[in-house]
């Protein structure tokens, strides 16, 4: 069921202690900064977080990690010049890391949303990231068995939503949003604008509303903007 909520706090209330949370974004593009801040504020802990990276600088996901809320990261590229909070926790043995090639990360998330029980891929065959995994030769190529990554909650950012939750994105900020929306039991979206149902061209919908549970509008100042959904939905 779709809800338009007024505050980012309500939006992230679905995240509980122990939840697996997918967070959209690649670099800053598509990162739902305001939802991540609300998650930090919520106090939810013992989280498994799925994101391409493991936080940067002193903001967002990096702060969640610094505060010890993240038990495990599932990501492709945790090491960055300013990933010092992850680096410190990792070296102290205080955070678990499941390192996944980026294409496997995307395909495993997609598999979860599409009801696939697992798949074989050549990516990673013969490397240490395939150690302990089932392999087989298919059509002469070594392949590795990979399993879907499901989540309790996805936090993503889109450009616009209509009244039934259909989403469109902007440029490379689309990245993980559509596949995470489909892979999570509960999908929370922050958008810049909520538009009347019928004003988005049905040909151009990227994420259909069936995948969306909570929408909060963040105005350009970064504050949740209340009271718009009812007027247009």
């Amino acid at each position, binding site marked *: 069921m779709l809800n338009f909520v007024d505050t980012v706090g309500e939006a992230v209330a679905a995240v509980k202690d122990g939840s697996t949370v997918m967070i959209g974004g690649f670099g800053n593009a598509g990162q739902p900064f305001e939802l991540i801040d609300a998650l930090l504020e919520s106090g939810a802990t013992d989280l498994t977080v799925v994101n391409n990276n493991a936080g940067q600088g002193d903001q967002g996901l990096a702060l969640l990690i610094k505060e010890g809320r993240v038990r495990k990261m599932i990501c492709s590229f945790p090491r960055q010049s300013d990933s010092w909070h992850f680096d410190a926790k990792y070296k102290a043995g205080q955070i678990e890391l499941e390192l996944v090639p980026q294409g496997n990360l995307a*395909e495993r998330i997609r598999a979860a949303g599409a009801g696939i029980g697992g798949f074989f891929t050549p990516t990673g065959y013969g490397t240490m990231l395939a150690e302990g995994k089932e392999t087989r030769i298919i059509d002469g190529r070594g392949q590795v068995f990979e399993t879907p990554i499901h989540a309790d909650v996805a936090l993503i950012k889109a450009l616009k939503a209509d009244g039934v939750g259909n989403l469109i*994105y902007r*440029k490379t900020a689309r*990245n993980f949003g559509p596949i995470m929306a489909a892979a999570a039991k509960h999908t929370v979206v922050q958008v810049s604008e909520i538009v009347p149902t019928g004003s988005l061209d049905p040909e151009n919908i990227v994420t259909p509303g069936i995948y969306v549970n909570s929408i909060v509008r963040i105005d350009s100042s970064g504050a949740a903007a209340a009271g718009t959904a009812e007027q247009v939905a």
Partner: protein
Amino acid sequence: MSLVETSIQTSETPLGRDDLARMVARDIAPGSFVNLGIGQPTLVSNYLKPEQNITLHTENGMLGMGPVATGDQIDGDLINAGKIAVTELPGASYFHHADSFAIMRGGHLDICVLGAFQVSATGDLANWHTGAPDAIPAVGGAMDLATGAKDVFVMMTLLTREGASKIVEACTYPLTGLGCVTRVYTDKAVFLTGPDGVRVRETFGCTLEELQALVPVPLTAAPAVER
């Protein structure tokens, strides 16, 4: 061992990074779809000519990527895999991460150009992890690119700072992909790798004999048709 042809030295001096990038750019067939890895391979884009009609892919969800953005062009929602602001060319398209990696993993890219720590005589690639026990591993899209593209070109210096060859009999660093590299561009030579061993297309500032003294795997001159 007979090296056969030694007349494959095409430059009096080793090539600099920009000369090498220019050479890679020249070698990309017109109309190709290409992914340029982070770092040295990114330089190649500076030397692609409009008449080559090359389409650049960036794994974070775009075909038809243009040059790095400057000034007013900079848009936080339009970045490349290195998280640098870029531009969009006419005919560009955007797609989500699974669709983007399907392009790579499904064998639709003609060429990807990657940096490397080591390449083996049979084209194994090591470019993501030094294997140091205290290193934080990070792989990104390297394994998908190495495994998915029709041709994998490597750009690197031939020797480490300590003078060891990065072309090796077998990689000692953790692997990125098996038997995937088809061509290696270095400051001292261009190598063709594959099941037949390592063939040298051309050398820069050295003869094939001098090159062989640096590289611990048997080298042969590539047949003229492959140069």
